[in-house]
């Protein structure tokens, strides 16, 4: 299955979503999403709460199982039951609203766990890489600390480099700053900003409109379980076409 190692060039599609639907009980959260994410793209997903943004993102690495539709990642239909999703998840980093760092491991241990366990790196290689990553986000001094000794912003920076340690092809951010104290939002956004500059494909669900506008190549506005409007930040923020987009933006941009 893994023998045909295809390389995807910048601008070619890396994720394709077709007719994606998802319900939680009687609640129809996603009502048919079609979307293509291209390599190197930075895509922001905005919209009001309950619009299906997070669910959409969580379907991309199958943390939520879609009911209908297909998701192709690097050409493979990952909704196929015979696909080993764990292999594909290794190439999709995810950052959560509530950080979800592992409290039982040190900062370094958080980073080296997956690469060593999944045989991507030896213990020594993983430690070298962890040191590099921690320096990049200014947490090297905290290498041997445990997460409970970190602030929210530090935890989230740790969560970001933990995902990066798997050298993913795509990063998924699920409201990465929503649970942070206001004074810590900046430090996390800066790390993400630096990250997208490297050309890493990124999908980010966020309520930080200024940030979305600044870093995105494309913005998706979701409402009522569908993508209502999409376009460049200039198009969506500057000249929204859809009534619901206009209404949403008028409430959040002031």
């Amino acid at each position: 299955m893994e023998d045909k190692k295809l390389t995807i060039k910048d601008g070619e599609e890396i994720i394709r979503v077709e007719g994606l639907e998802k319900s939680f009980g009687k609640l129809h959260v996603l009502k048919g999403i079609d979307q293509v994410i291209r390599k190197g793209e930075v895509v922001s997903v905005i919209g009001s709460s309950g619009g299906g943004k997070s669910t959409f993102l969580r379907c991309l690495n199958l943390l939520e199982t879609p009911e209908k539709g297909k998701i192709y990642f690097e050409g493979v239909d990952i909704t196929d039951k015979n696909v080993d999703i764990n292999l594909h998840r290794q190439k999709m980093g995810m950052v959560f609203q509530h950080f979800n760092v592992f409290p039982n491991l040190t900062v370094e241990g958080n980073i080296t766990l997956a690469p060593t366990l999944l045989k991507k790196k030896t213990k020594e290689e993983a430690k070298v890489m962890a040191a590099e990553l921690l320096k990049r986000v200014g947490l090297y001094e905290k290498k041997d600390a445990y997460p409970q000794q970190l602030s929210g912003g530090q935890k989230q920076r740790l969560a970001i480099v933990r995902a990066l340690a798997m050298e993913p092809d795509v990063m998924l951010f699920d409201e990465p700053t929503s649970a942070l104290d206001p004074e810590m939002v900046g430090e996390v956004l800066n790390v993400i900003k630096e990250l997208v500059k490297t050309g890493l494909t990124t999908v980010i669900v966020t309520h930080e409109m200024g940030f979305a506008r600044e870093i995105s190549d494309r913005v998706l506005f979701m409402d009522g379980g569908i993508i209502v409007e999409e376009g460049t930040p200039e198009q969506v923020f500057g000249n929204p076409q859809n009534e619901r987009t206009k209404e949403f933006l008028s409430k959040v941009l002031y």
Partner: protein
Amino acid sequence: MSNVVDNIVKTWTNYHHLFIQGLGVTIVLSIITVIMGSIFGFLLMLLRRSRFNIFRFRPLNFIAATYIEIIRGTPMLLQLYFFYFLLPELLPFLDLSKVTCCVVAMCVNSAAYVSEVFRSGIEAVDKGQTEAARSLGLDSRQTMIHVVLPQAIKNVLPALCNEFIMMIKDTSLASTFFVGELMSVYRTVSGILFLTIEPLIIVGIIYFIVTFVLSKFVRLLEMKLTVA
């Protein structure tokens, strides 16, 4: 009244070695029961949580749940009787001692309670932890071993110690079959001296001291774990 105190003192001076021996048996029985019960209870918990299903029916799950309900819904004394009479009948060639039968019964009992302790300990670990581990590409087994279980142990350890304390008291039920633990010693000494209350008070004090000290220890452990 002073008569009672005198008798207690006399009973203790003459028979303290028996009481201490009985306490030893009680503690050994409890330790064996909790260790075996924990191993068996852990396996039971795995069955209880297994997702294996045939057309949505989960047979392993069903077996474990039924087992737990039956054990928790019947008295331990009944279970002791049951195994005491059943095991030698079932396995006559093994020539099981009555202590062994009692230990088996107590393990069977303890496993049901301990499996629920494990289950709630695991379920108390935030779902986000599992999601984060899975998103990194860990499979469910790796997630369990490296992320969930190390955190669950913190939730489980104090409850396991409490189970041990419960067991120290519950082993007294095995005195029905004279297995030599503390309550059996009471019956022996009481028979020798034709005294009922005095040895009972001694035995009660011993039980109380042991469980009191242990429960203080558990409180300390709990505090340590919540700080860490």
